């Protein structure tokens, strides 16, 4: 490799010449002041995002009980996760998969379809409906657990129990949040309810901004129905928004996965029914003080999120990677 400064010289000389003849145009120059502009953001970004991620990776190779200095143990945590952690294999992985698949791709498809249907309506009606559908995401899931606890209360004062008993659908009150069969569906329902957030708005805005001429051209080229219109025109045109929505859906799915513990009020959740990987991490970190082990779980989670996002980029990205 040649020394980059050598390559730079002619350019900067040309620049200097240019400046000599047109002293006011110095737009393409480098702006050292830019570092001052990015510094505050980067500092916070480094401390609260980069360093914790790096620490997670380092700690994942150690045994660390928060009291003694971390001991290097190589891949032992990872090996234990894969071979020795019965709860992880038996409950956490299947639960996380089930939850993530339904809430992630399921919720994402749903929010796209809702956005698409909303775009077919007149502005006033659309704005009102969009607001109604978006507003649950303002409640940020976990803080709303008061609401769900009242609705799904396990005795006959619970609203769902009362309603179903009046209908005659059940005779005995169901302990919705503490029984293994019902906790997971409720978690999924609650998360879907509050999942029409930023990504949903982005896709709606994207669909509304598609140039009408594209549709006209499509009709001439023989597009026959609404479905073809959506698949051949709308989706390819709003790929960037689809990607943004997908990334938001992935992040939202994993970010909201503390919901099971919030609803059932215990970690681990009853019979591990709602135990997701995030709960497993917190259980090992804050209840058992096995920080190294928890860190290894965190790294696995981050890798999974990254892999899934890469897949979304493959699907919708315009840049080849």
């Amino acid at each position, binding site marked *: 490799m040649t020394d980059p400064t050598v390559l730079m010289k002619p350019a900067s000389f040309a620049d200097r010449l240019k400046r000599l003849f047109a002293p006011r145009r110095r737009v*393409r120059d480098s702006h050292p002041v830019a570092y001052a502009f990015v510094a505050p953001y980067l500092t916070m970004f480094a401390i609260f995002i980069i360093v914790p991620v790096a*620490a997670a990776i380092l700690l994942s190779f150690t045994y660390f009980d928060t009291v003694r200095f971390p001991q290097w143990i190589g891949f032992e945590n990872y090996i234990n996760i894969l071979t020795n952690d019965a709860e992880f294999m038996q409950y956490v992985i299947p639960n996380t998969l089930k939850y993530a698949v339904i809430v992630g791709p399921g919720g994402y498809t749903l929010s796209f379809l809702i956005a698409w249907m909303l775009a077919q309506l007149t502005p006033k009606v659309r704005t009102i409906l969009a607001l109604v559908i978006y507003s649950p995401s303002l409640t940020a899931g976990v*803080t709303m657990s008061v609401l769900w606890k*009242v609705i799904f209360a396990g005795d*006959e004062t619970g609203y769902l129990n009362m309603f179903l008993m009046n209908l005659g659908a059940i005779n005995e009150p169901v302990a919705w949040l503490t029984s293994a069969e019902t906790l997971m569906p409720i978690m999924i329902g609650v998360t879907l309810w509050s999942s*029409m957030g930023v990504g949903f708005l982005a896709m709606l805005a994207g669909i509304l901004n598609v140039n009408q001429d594209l549709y006209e051209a499509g009709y001439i080229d023989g597009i026959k129905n609404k479905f073809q219109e959506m698949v051949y025109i709308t989706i390819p045109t709003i*790929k960037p928004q689809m990607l943004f929505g997908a990334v938001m859906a992935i992040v939202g799915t994993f970010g909201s996965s503390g919901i099971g513990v919030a609803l059932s009020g215990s970690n681990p959740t009853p019979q591990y029914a709602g135990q997701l990987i995030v709960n497993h991490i917190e259980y090992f970190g804050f209840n058992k003080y096995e920080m190294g082990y928890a860190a290894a779980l965190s790294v696995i989670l981050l890798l999974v999120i990254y892999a899934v996002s890469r897949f979304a980029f493959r699907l919708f990205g315009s840049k080849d990677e």
Partner: protein
Amino acid sequence: MKKTKSRFQATKINPKRFHPAQFRYLAVLLPIAAFMILPLIFIFNHAFKPFEELFAYPPRFFVNRPTLSNFTNLFAVTGSSGIPMSRYLFNSIVVTILVIAVSVLISTMAGYALSKLHFKGKKAINEINTIALMFVGVAVTIPRYLVIEKLGLIDNFLIHVLPYLAVPVGLFLVKQFIDQIPGELIDAARVDGANDWQIYQKIVVPLVKPAIATIMILSFQSVWNSADTSATYINADVKKTFAFYMGTLTTNTSAVESQGMAAAASLIMFIPNLVIFIIMQSKVMDTMAHSGIK
């Protein structure tokens, strides 16, 4: 052929006028909207129910004789350690205002530099930030805790603020929005002798107001709704926030009285979210149009 064409084309994207063909979309969307809004209506009703109605068997969905007693109870009650509710609310308001002000400032500044200035490392920063869009805070709760502990920030009021300042999505949206400002505008200002800080202040900030509104909303939501910081990093009750306090109200679900207060509290949590979003709604949509990842 002509006929079928006109039938499906009658329902164009973003139609100006109502057309009967829109009924089929309404037929799907209205039940969804009802499902979405039902829990919110419930909270509204529950918050205004008097004691007897909270207790009533069978329980009723709608409030019969609305009262403010849940709110007065909420304000009168003091936490286990003798701290009045208003203290938690005050903490939340201070924290929220600080986070919004500072995060808007630092992400617009960074967004300006990353979009319009030329410097080494710019491309790398943009790429890292795009990857960081996928960052999920809860995944690194524990290493984050250790970092914060090392910095000596446990039980420090600032810890409510600092972790929420760098929001990759916020920077991403602002940067995308600043990309829309023509470079000529900035060049012209430079020609007129404006320095970068003046360009940022006088040109960029006024033009990206929609994006600023959007970061404000995103920051507001994440910090106002967050109970985690208080639960994880703060020991002294006097420094905890309203969202955390609300969580403690609901731990005892059997106590009917606290149920009413909890509903009132969640209404207090929810209303500011909704009002702010309604006010800034059109600006947010404007930003979202430029949200695509290319």
